[in-house]
């Protein structure tokens, strides 16, 4: 069994009249058990280059209400520089240059949006179905069954796609923070079909997204390079 220990030592000889020498050590176990955690992201670094907010860990990708732990450290050497650490939209605090934090994490993920596209009628040579930056172009006049086969074999960057039935595909978002309404049409920003014939694609939302409620985000205080070291122990 893997063993991971985390020890904290806080010391001070002058904060109080009595010297402070606090030590806490814990063996990182899975929730409610004595079994050691067995998974980690490894120690990572993120160098930021703007004061935008960056997502470090997203709740969607981890099981919620477990005993995950996060280590963060601001590697800046400039005392004034800090990262504001936010959980979902709630600021937790600032880690200034040299500061570190060790945080339990609930990893409450959201609900992934899903919708179906039902294709009908005849899709002709040159017709296209474009979504998520991926365009499927017909090289020949196809049945809707063949069109579904073409689409399901594409790789979409932000959505997964499966064949639901012969003429229907289901798209599921990879990210619960996408809350937009998918619409199909010839001028939509989302799914776009262009048909020379009478082919149609009808969109129906099947799952409404609920945004992840516990993403760990950082906001650098300056737009110049700052580096955060981070690591997640998870189940």
């Amino acid at each position, binding site marked *: 069994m893997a063993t991971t220990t*985390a020890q*904290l030592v806080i010391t001070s000889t002058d904060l109080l009249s009595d010297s402070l020498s606090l030590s*806490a050590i814990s063996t990182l176990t899975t929730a409610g058990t004595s079994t050691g955690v067995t*998974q980690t992201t490894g120690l990572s670094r993120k160098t930021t280059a703007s004061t935008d907010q960056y997502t470090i860990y997203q709740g969607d990708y981890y099981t919620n209400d477990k005993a995950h732990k996060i280590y963060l450290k601001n590697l800046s050497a400039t005392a004034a520089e800090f990262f504001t650490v936010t*959980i979902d939209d709630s600021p937790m605090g*600032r880690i200034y240059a040299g*500061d*570190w*934090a060790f945080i339990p994490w609930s990893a409450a993920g959201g609900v992934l949006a899903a919708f179906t596209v039902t294709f009908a009628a005849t899709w002709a040579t040159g017709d296209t179905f474009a979504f998520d930056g991926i365009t499927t172009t017909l090289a020949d006049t196809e049945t809707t069954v063949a069109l579904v086969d073409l689409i399901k074999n594409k790789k979409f960057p932000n959505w997964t796609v499966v064949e639901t039935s012969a003429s229907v595909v289901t798209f599921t978002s990879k990210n619960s923070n996408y809350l937009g309404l998918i619409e199909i049409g010839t001028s939509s920003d989302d799914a776009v079909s262009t048909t020379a014939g009478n082919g149609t694609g009808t969109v129906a939302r099947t799952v409404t997204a609920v945004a992840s*409620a516990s993403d760990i985000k950082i906001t650098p205080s300056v737009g110049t390079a700052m580096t955060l070291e981070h690591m997640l122990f998870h189940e």
Partner: protein
Amino acid sequence: MATAEITLDSDIQSDTLALVKSSILNKGGTQALLDQTTGLNKIIFTATTNVILLDSSAAGVGKAAKVYIANKSTDSSEYVTITINAQIIGRLYAGDWMFIPWSQSDAAGNIELAPSVATALPVEYMTIHEGLTPVSA
């Protein structure tokens, strides 16, 4: 001067982890030292009610306070749920501890705790800070 040192040892990966990092606890944006603390508190909780452990105050807004909380239970199934600003951070199971920055971004930035059991569950906590606003009598 107060220092906080973390040691992380792990054999989860083929390359074992042996991380030791120490930081001097300074006030926000300076090299002046944090000079105030609540001292180490210990409470034995006997109800599952969500309670305010640390009350956010105007004096701490945007500062560099640090918070230590440890679940001192020895029953591995017992945990406390830690919340900040009504947002759940995570669970501390028996023996777990946390050390986080606390900038008390607004008056609602309280740190709250809810025990999982109503039997005696001991918790230790402390904040080292730049200032807290005393509650008027």
